[in-house]
């Protein structure tokens, strides 16, 4: 026969038990949701080689051409102006940091660059009517440090600086997303970490290590390839019938056998 205090204790224990179960279920749900929206680094969304994306390819080539000027700013910072002058200092100091600290430093350093919107360009249609075109232009790191840039330029500048610090090309992508918070297209950098987690460097926020909520991924690129993340996209290789193997993008899936 149970006493009143035993009944009371039992009901309290049961309450704690059910509350714990409820919290655990909620947390698990949140975790699953954020994992669902993780940037799909390992999905076969490769569209084509980077050189097919002409505006991006031109930026990559221009960046190569400006490598000497950037290197000069590292060795003789006094000869360079503004952000270009501090660039050498940041790169030098970053080389003494661990990977996580390097990401934090580059994220903060680039976010502190002055903002400069894309120039509006015009073109003429078949009836010779002047039309305004708002296309994104991809700036090189040198041009960005010299003149500042807008959203996508912050992402590309971080990409180039991380490459300078020795981050592998296969671990980095500039990703264009549709931001459901900003209601517009927005560029971020996706970084694959050694444990295969994906970190997002978004100029609007601190580094996103776990939750990637608020993005719809549109496309991505690095020096090798372009990826198309739109829902209706079927990779050219997925369309190919037969044994033709898709070109390897040097991406290892988590838990894949080597």
């Amino acid at each position: 026969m149970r006493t009143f205090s035993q009944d009371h204790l039992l009901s309290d224990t049961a309450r704690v038990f059910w509350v714990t179960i409820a919290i655990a279920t909620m947390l698990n749900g949140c975790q699953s949701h954020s994992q669902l929206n993780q940037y799909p680094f390992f999905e076969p969304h490769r569209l084509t080689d980077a050189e097919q994306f002409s505006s991006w390819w031109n930026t990559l080539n221009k960046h190569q051409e400006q490598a000497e000027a950037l290197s000069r700013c590292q060795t003789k910072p006094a000869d360079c102006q503004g952000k270009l002058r501090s660039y050498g200092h940041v790169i030098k100091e970053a080389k003494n940091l661990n990977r996580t600290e390097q990401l934090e430093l580059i994220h903060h350093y680039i976010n502190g660059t002055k903002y400069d919107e894309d120039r509006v360009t015009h073109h003429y249609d078949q009836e010779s009517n002047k039309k305004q075109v708002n296309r994104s232009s991809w700036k090189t790191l040198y041009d960005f440090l010299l003149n500042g840039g807008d959203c996508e330029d912050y992402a590309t500048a971080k990409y180039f600086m991380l490459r300078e610090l020795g981050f592998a090309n296969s671990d980095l992508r500039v990703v264009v997303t549709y931001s459901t918070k900003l209601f517009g297209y927005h560029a971020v950098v996706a970084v694959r970490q050694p444990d295969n987690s994906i970190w997002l460097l978004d100029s609007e926020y601190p580094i996103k290590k776990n939750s990637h909520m608020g993005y719809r991924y549109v496309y991505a690129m690095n020096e090798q390839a372009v990826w198309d993340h739109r829902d209706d996209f079927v990779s050219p290789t997925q369309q190919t019938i037969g044994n033709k193997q898709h070109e390897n993008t040097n991406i290892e899936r988590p838990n894949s056998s080597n």
Partner: protein
Amino acid sequence: MKILILSALIVATSYAFASESDVVQVASLTVKERIQSIEEINVTARNPSIDKPANNPRIENILVEARRLEKEISDDRNLRK
């Protein structure tokens, strides 16, 4: 029987000669169109959240020094004026 063998030969020949190049052509057209549509996307221009201090004091020190260097050059320019 002859008709059956002939049909099988025709199917095999057309598959051997046509399949791969046709598929590749369709795929490359799709890629071209996809790249075109990607290039037309205007990425939103938004001001980043600047000047938030880093949590790590070591990183913050590097950033402070970087800002000092950037200011130094503007001071040089002021002196030249």
